[in-house]
């Protein structure tokens, strides 16, 4: 199976070569096109061919439906550190509820840890019908191996059809091991989820190529269907006080962790963390110098305690630590107000902040791409506009 090229039809125009995101198409000496190992059969080239010489051969393998039928239920991995549930878990319960209802199945949460207190309560209140709980010394501090071992054991025993986890550094660190262990497909960092009621397929949409394209991904022949989901793209479930559900406590024999946690350092102790902040003031290369981040801090203060964000250019220049970076390789944020100052708005930055409620951009270049996503764009010198803004906010 894979991409088929009808060489009799191919005119050698090369149109498909240019659109392939994976550099998988090349013209031979005679001009006709051939496909190489990099092809992922994504189909991006199909429409580019003016003569219809390209097609995707699909497999006629009989679906292992019987085997897949035994899998039921939608699971959310509930991320907990120090007894506190990560906000993304409530977001997953929010979207999970909708998907579970459409599939007509239970919404379950999985809680791993050691003497972490009663974390199941908030999970029930946010919509979980059932909470699978494993308490074991090996799970006291997060390390990938025992986490993967525990979740894999639960999946083998209870056979959920969908498993969702937050695309946090914790989730993205151990879920790929689970996918290998239970022989399942895993889609990373999804920003949209949907189910097809008849086929029971989870349609997972995610950005690729630095956000330049979106891909819809399915796992037709393997269960569970697994995805990590980007924080802050779904709204958290509304809690219902006093709501409860079934608690299933599992005793698992887990191996001693190979990785030992010696020390945990919180680098954001005295600052507002951009992930989760309601207001964010971001500085880019336009700030020109590290000391000008003071101006950002002042604006943050005038807003009544906003977090300070940064573009990668500002982080790379060494003006501020990488914990502040917003974007593809930084954090994804969804504040009520995002104020970008001296940020050009390259796609890698935009994918991390473009779902913010209100976006304000200050840039002296009227053609800066950031204005394309801004609700209010101010063309001007940030060193003139921001001090006036601080004055007006305090006035």
């Amino acid at each position, binding site marked *: 199976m894979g991409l088929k090229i009808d060489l009799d039809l191919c005119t050698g125009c090369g149109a498909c070569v*240019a659109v392939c995101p994976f550099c998988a198409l090349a013209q031979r000496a005679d001009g006709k096109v051939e496909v*190489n190992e990099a092809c992922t059969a994504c189909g991006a080239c199909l429409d580019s061919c003016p003569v219809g010489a390209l097609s995707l051969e699909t497999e006629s393998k009989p679906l292992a439906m019987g085997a897949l039928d035994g899998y039921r239920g939608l699971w959310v991995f509930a991320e907990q550190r120090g007894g506190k549930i990560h906000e993304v878990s409530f977001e997953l319960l929010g979207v999970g509820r909708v998907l579970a209802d459409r599939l007509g199945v239970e919404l379950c949460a999985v809680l791993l840890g050691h003497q972490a207190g009663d974390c199941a309560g908030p999970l029930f209140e946010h919509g979980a019908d059932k909470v699978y709980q494993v308490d074991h010394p090996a799970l006291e501090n997060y390390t990938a191996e025992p986490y993967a071992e525990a979740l894999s054991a639960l999946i083998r025993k209870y056979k959920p059809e969908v498993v969702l986890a937050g695309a946090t550094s914790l989730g993205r660190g151990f879920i790929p091991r689970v996918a290998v262990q239970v022989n399942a497909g*895993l889609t990373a960092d999804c920003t949209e989820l949907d189910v097809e009621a008849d086929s029971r397929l989870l349609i997972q949409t995610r950005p690729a190529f630095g956000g330049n*394209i979106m891909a819809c991904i399915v796992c037709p022949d393997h269960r569970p269907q697994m995805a990590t989901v980007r924080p802050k793209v779904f709204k958290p479930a509304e809690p219902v006080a006093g709501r409860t559900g079934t608690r299933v406590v599992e005793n698992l024999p887990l191996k001693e962790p190979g990785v030992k*946690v010696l020390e945990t*350092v919180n680098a954001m102790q005295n600052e507002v963390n951009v992930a989760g902040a309601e207001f964010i003031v971001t500085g880019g290369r336009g700030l020109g110098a590290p000391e000008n981040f003071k101006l950002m801090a002042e604006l943050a203060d005038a807003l009544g305690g906003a977090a300070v964000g940064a573009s990668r250019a500002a982080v790379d220049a060494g003006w501020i630590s990488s914990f502040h970076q917003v974007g593809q390789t930084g954090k994804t944020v969804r504040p009520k107000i995002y104020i970008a100052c001296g940020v050009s708005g390259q796609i890698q930055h935009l994918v991390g902040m473009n779902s913010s409620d209100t976006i304000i951009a200050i840039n002296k270049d009227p053609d800066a791409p950031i204005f394309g996503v801004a609700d209010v764009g101010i*063309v001007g010198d940030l060193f003139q506009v921001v001090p006036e803004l601080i004055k*007006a906010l305090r006035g």
Partner: protein
Amino acid sequence: MHIVVCAKQVPNTTQVRINPETNTLVREGVESIMNPFDENALEMALQLKERHPGTQVTVLTMGPPQAVDILKEAVGRGADEVMLLCDKAFAGSDTWATSYALSMAIGKLPKPDLVLFGKQAIDGDTAQVGPGVADWLGMPCITCACKIEIAGNRALVERAFEDGYEKLEVALPCALTVLKEANVPRMASLRGKMAAKKLQVAPTTAEMVGADPAKLGLSASPTRVMKIFSPPPKTGGVLWQGEEPAVMAQRLVDLLRERKLI
């Protein structure tokens, strides 16, 4: 010590643009590069080699024949050995199948003490291959590592989290995925460039590493790309220009107050 670095050739995604008329990807003129995070993984290996004499660094890539370019780059910077895993049987592998293939190839190399990966590849951005390979190999894997020190058969590693970092200790062999913050990758040396020029790389096939064909390529990949599309273009709101900064600032604050945002 033997360190294996897994590196991938990727299109430079910062140069990728969408043609707004046809709504398709414009890849023309986009160069292929070594995945930026893999440069940091390679640099980490080379620095360890400097600190621990006798260390061998092997760079492994799976990809089409032209991926040899990044192996040459790696040799130019100081890698000792390379392996190009190249076979039509690998075509269309997702992270599950890629992890399996790479783990089989590593199994054919002298037993590694460390296996290094980039944090993620910038084409797919999945960050799944490193932990996946480690699982096939039965090794611990620390993701998002920014610092490493080796003492005897143990490693002290610093790994970053969203809001801080952790100091970890692990017995070798182990796998790490490496962050950009870890180091600044070096350029190829003149001597290295000469060595790279002379480099002849014979592709290693699936059969040569003993990989099970049923676990390779598109047909063995659990995930399927159903469709690819361009994100809908965002439309901006209002643009204010040519007025006094104080006037625009006051109007903005009024607007935010009116909408009860502040």
